[in-house]
C-alpha cells in the first residue's frame, strides 16, 4: 500500500514548519525522514489526523487520509505497556484485540522473549518493552508502519531484531515510514533517507550502486597525490576562526547536503572540503570511505556489526560509541584492508 505526501506544507503559529514537498512511499520499501523533533511530532500528528496540512494532501492508497485507519499502524516513541501483565498475557491480549491469526508463541520467538514469557512487563528492560510494542504492531499487521524513533536507545540485540523485522516487512510488501532524528540509525534502517527541514526535502545519498568507475578514478587520483604530503592538518570553520586538526584526532566525517562535518570527541566541525577531497587527503592516514556519506578513521573502529546479510555498521571506540553505516559494497573492501579476504 502506498503512502503519499502531495505538495504537503505546514505552517504553525505563522511560522513555517516545512515547505511544500512531494514524497511517495511504495509497498515493500523502508523510507526514513531525518528531521528535528518539531517536524517529527508535526508529521506524527498529521498522520494521526490530529492536525491538518496548511496545504496539500496526504494520501493512503490513493485516497485522502481518513482519521482512523487500521491499515496504518504506529510505533510511538513514548508508548506504554500494560506493566502488570506478563509477556504472554499481553501478547495474547493484542492477538484477541486485533483478531489476529498469528500464533502468540511464534511472535514471542520473533522478538526473542521466550525466556521472559512469564515475566511481568514492568520487569523488562526498556529495549525489551520496545520489542513488546513491535510485537503488538506486528500482531496488528498494518499495511503502512509509521515508526517514531524506532531504534532510539535500543540495545544491540533489540536493534538486530528490529532490523531483521524490517527485512521481513520488505518481503511482505509492507510500507515502512521511519521518523528519526538520528541520521546514522536512519541510514542503517532505511532504503531511502530524506532530510526534512524548513528549507525543504532533500534526499540523502545512500544508494549502493553508485558509479564504480568514478570511484576508481578518484582512487587513482588519490594514489598520485599521496607522495608529497602537502600539509597534515585539516582546517575546519568555527565561527570566524579556522581550527586545524590532526588527522588521528578525527573520529569520522559525515556529509550532509554537500557540507562535510568532522567529528572530534563527539563534536561536529564543518569542513572546507568535500567528502571526496577529504577522502583523498586522509587515505594515507588510515581513513576509509565506508559509505557514500561517511569517512571513518579505521584506527578508531572497535567493532563491525552485521545486522542482516546486507546491512552493517561500524562502532567506534569514542566515548559515545558512535555507530556509522557501512555499505554492502564497502564491506568487501574493508575485509581486504583488514587482510581477511
Amino acid at each position, binding site marked *: 500500500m502506498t503512502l503519499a505526501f502531495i505538495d504537503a506544507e505546514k505552517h504553525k503559529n505563522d511560522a513555517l514548519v516545512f515547505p511544500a514537498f512531494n514524497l511517495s512511499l511504495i509497498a515493500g520499501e523502508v523510507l526514513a525522514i531525518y528531521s528535528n523533533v518539531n517536524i517529527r511530532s508535526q508529521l506524527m500528528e498529521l498522520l*494521526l489526523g*490530529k492536525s491538518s496540512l496548511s496545504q496539500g494532501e496526504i494520501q493512503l492508497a490513493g485516497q485522502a487520509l481518513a482519521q*482512523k485507519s*487500521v491499515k496504518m*499502524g*504506529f510505533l*510511538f516513541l*513514548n*508508548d*506504554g*505497556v*500494560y*506493566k*502488570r*501483565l506478563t509477556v504472554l*498475557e*499481553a501478547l495474547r*491480549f493484542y492477538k*484477541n*484485540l*486485533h*483478531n489476529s491469526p498469528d500464533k502468540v508463541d511464534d511472535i514471542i520467538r520473533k522478538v526473542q522473549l521466550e525466556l521472559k514469557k512469564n515475566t*511481568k512487563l514492568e520487569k523488562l528492560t526498556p529495549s525489551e518493552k520496545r520489542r513488546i510494542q513491535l510485537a*503488538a504492531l506486528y500482531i*496488528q499487521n498494518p499495511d503502512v508502519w509509521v515508526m517514531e524513533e524506532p531504534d532510539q536507545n535500543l540495545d544491540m540485540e533489540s536493534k538486530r531484531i528490529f532490523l531483521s523485522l524490517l527485512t521481513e516487512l520488505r518481503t511482505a510488501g509492507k510500507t515502512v515510514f521511519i521518523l528519526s532524528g538520528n541520521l546514522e540509525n536512519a541510514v542503517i534502517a532505511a532504503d531511502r533517507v530524506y532530510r526534512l527541514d524548513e528549507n525543504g526535502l532533500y534526499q540523502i545519498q545512500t544508494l549502493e550502486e553508485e558509479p564504480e568507475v568514478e570511484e576508481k578514478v578518484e582512487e587513482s587520483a588519490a594514489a598520485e597525490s599521496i607522495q608529497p604530503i602537502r600539509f597534515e592538518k585539516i582546517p575546519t570553520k568555527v565561527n570566524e576562526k579556522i581550527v586545524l586538526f590532526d588527522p588521528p584526532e578525527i573520529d569520522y566525517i559525515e556529509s550532509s547536503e554537500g557540507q562535510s562535518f568532522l567529528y572530534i570527541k563527539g563534536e561536529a566541525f564543518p569542513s572546507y572540503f568535500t567528502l571526496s577531497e577529504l577522502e583523498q587527503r586522509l587515505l594515507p592516514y588510515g581513513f576509509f570511505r565506508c559509505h557514500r556519506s561517511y569517512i571513518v578513521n579505521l584506527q578508531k573502529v572497535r567493532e563491525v556489526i552485521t545486522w542482516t546479510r546486507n546491512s552493517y555498521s561500524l562502532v567506534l571506540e569514542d566515548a559515545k560509541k558512535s555507530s556509522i553505516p557501512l555499505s554492502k559494497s564497502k564491506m568487501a573492501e574493508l575485509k581486504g584492508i583488514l587482510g581477511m579476504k
Partner: protein
Amino acid sequence: MNESIKRVNAIFQKDFKDFSRNIAVSVVLFMPLFVAALYGRMGVDTLDAHYMIINLTFAMVATFVQCCLIAEEKEQNTLRGLMLSPASTFEILSGKSLLTFVLTILVIVAGALLSEYQPANLLIVSLAIVLSSFFYIALGTLLGLWAKSVMEASVIILPVLGIFSFGSFLLPLAEKYPVLKVVEYLPSVQLIEIASKVENGAGFSETAMQFGIIFIWTAAAGALTAIIYKKRMMD
C-alpha cells in the same frame, strides 16, 4: 458482531488480570464489605444503613475503580494504542466497564448478604441497582478521562464519595435550608426512595418517577462521557 464481542472480552480479561494484581486499587473492594459485616454483626437493620453500604459500594467500586482503570491507561500511554486499534469507542468503553460492573454487583450482593438486607421486591430493587450502577460507572469513566494519573483519580473521587454516598445525610437539613432540596434528586437518594416504597409494597408504576430521575442522570453522564472521550481522542 462476533468480532466485537471478542474484542470486548479481550479488554475485559486484560483488565481483570491487571486489576487483580493492582492491590492499591483492588483493596477498596473490601471496604464496603467490611462495613456491611460490621453492621450485620451489630444488628443494624435500617433501610438507610443498608443503602449507605450500597451507595458506598457505588462510589468506591463503580466510580473509583472505573476511574482508576481509565486514568491508568492514560498515565501509561496505553489508551492511545486502544484508540488506534480496530475496537470502536463503544467496544473500548464497554470492555472497560464490564469488569467494574461485575465487581460492583458482586460486592453489592455480598454486602447485602453480610448486612442481612432482604428487599420485599427483589426484581424492582435489582433493576434500580443495575440502572444506578450504569450511572456511577459513566461518572467514573468521565472522571478517569479527566484525571491525569491514578494519584489524581484517588483525590477527585472524594467529592463524589461525599456527594453521592453521604448526600442522604443532608436530607434532614433540607427543611431548614431550602437549597438542600436539590439533594432529593440525587440518584442515591432516589434509590433509597425506591427501596422504601418497595418495602411498603409498591410496584413499578409507583416507582416510575424515581426510575426516570436515575435514568436521566445515567443518560446525562453517558452523553457527557462520550463527548469528553471524543475530545480526548484528539489529543
